[in-house]
């Protein structure tokens, strides 16, 4: 049940959170 709860509700939030982290950390370096 825990595993199901994790993949159904926590995993999607983690993936979206990762995209937000990348938004802030992957800024383009000025050339």
């Amino acid at each position, binding site marked *: 049940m825990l595993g*199901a709860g994790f993949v159904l509700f926590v995993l999607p939030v983690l*993936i979206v959170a990762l*995209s937000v982290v*990348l938004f802030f950390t992957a800024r*383009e370096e000025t050339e």
Partner: protein
Amino acid sequence: MGYEKLADPLALGIFLLTLSLPILIGFLTLRRTRSQSDFLLGGRAMDKVVVALSAVSSGRSSWLVLGVSGMAWTMGTGAVWAVVGYILAELFQFIYIGRPLRRESEQFGSLTLLDWFETRFGDRRQVIRITGAVIIIVFMTAYVAAQFNAGAKALSIALDIHLLSALAIAGVLVLAYMVMGGYIAVAYNDVVRAVIMIVGLVVFPVVGLVKAGGVGVLLATLNRLNPAFIDPVSIGMGALIGFLGIGLGSPGQPHIVVRYMSVNDPDRLRAAAVIGTFWNVVLGWGAVFIGLLGRALVPLESGLPNADPEMIFLVLASDYFGPVLYGLMVGGIFAAILSTVDSQLLVVSSTFVRDLWEEVLHRDEEPEEALKLRLNRLVVVVAGLAALVVAYVAQDLVFWLVLFAWGGLGAAFGPAIIMTLYHQGTRRAGIVAGMVTGAVVTVLWRQFLKGPTGIYELVASFPAAVLAILVGSWWSRRRAGTG
């Protein structure tokens, strides 16, 4: 067959509206399409939201709406892994492939992926362009034909018409707006379809969960039916790696990658990555939830038309929704199919007109912009009609070829793009070796080794292509005395 409710005039009206809306969008974008660059890339002036939603919905075909929900019905929560791989891959590729590709393609004046490869490697003999064009034409035409066939089959059942008439309707619908607005029409249509798909894949599971009595009841019901349904790793390591391996195909799909080249500012792809990922997650998990709800509400195969788990989406839509939402949801299936078919057809057309006609056959001339635009429009129609004919007369060949399409394109172009961007020692010979190896190993592995080994073809062909690029590049550097 799951479509009976379309007999309701309101449901039918909404469904037909979702089908014909794209033509209006095509008409509205007609004036913005004045050059070949507009027709193929939206003049590199597309907004980040449009690029994000277009990249996501072009990559998702009926496989997501019908296939993934069917998988979740069959195997339970383990089906989640089928969407995790490509969502993560696409998140990273928005930024780490899309951004450099967008920047360099403007610098080089590249309109297609093969333009970019050729300039990047100074390939005056055009070996990369011709090899890549052959791979694109073979796999993409099969892809377009298979999608047309799937869409027409569903349409013929939904409206109770002959397959040939359904193919003609699907063809006219797609070709009409493509000829008018090219890439811009396709991209804006993708946005509308992303919204329609969201209605199908979000409203649906939310309403379903309420009707089923909440998440706790749903999981308890699934557990009672089969404890493996609520164990996400019960599918086994081999299947799990194979599911995640689907994501290896994403960076190499020309119809997805070309979207990054169309954004108005390369750095906007960071924001597009957030928007696209959010949308991808919502669509992917929506499809999984529909399958799980379906299992709880319709536990036996005998409750499904033709005992086919892929019909669960239609069965639930028909049982639980009124005519308006039902019409939208059935429209959502076609939205998913058509959003893939139009972007792929545009890649086929750009391969013929830009890659072969302009850059190979008329290499030393400067064809007029108006002529190129006319030719692109003509080739969209001719290639579209050819795909429709193939979809009707060579169904077996199409379905055989399309089995390799995602993997073949993914392994041929994904490693080549990544190694070009991130491995300095990559040479032209390596890229050609990698493209051919990726395509050939995908076909051979799927045909002969997938059964005995249980390993998904991309998990084998992707690293094989990387290896071929490394070896080919090493050989090339050694011959030139630079490595």
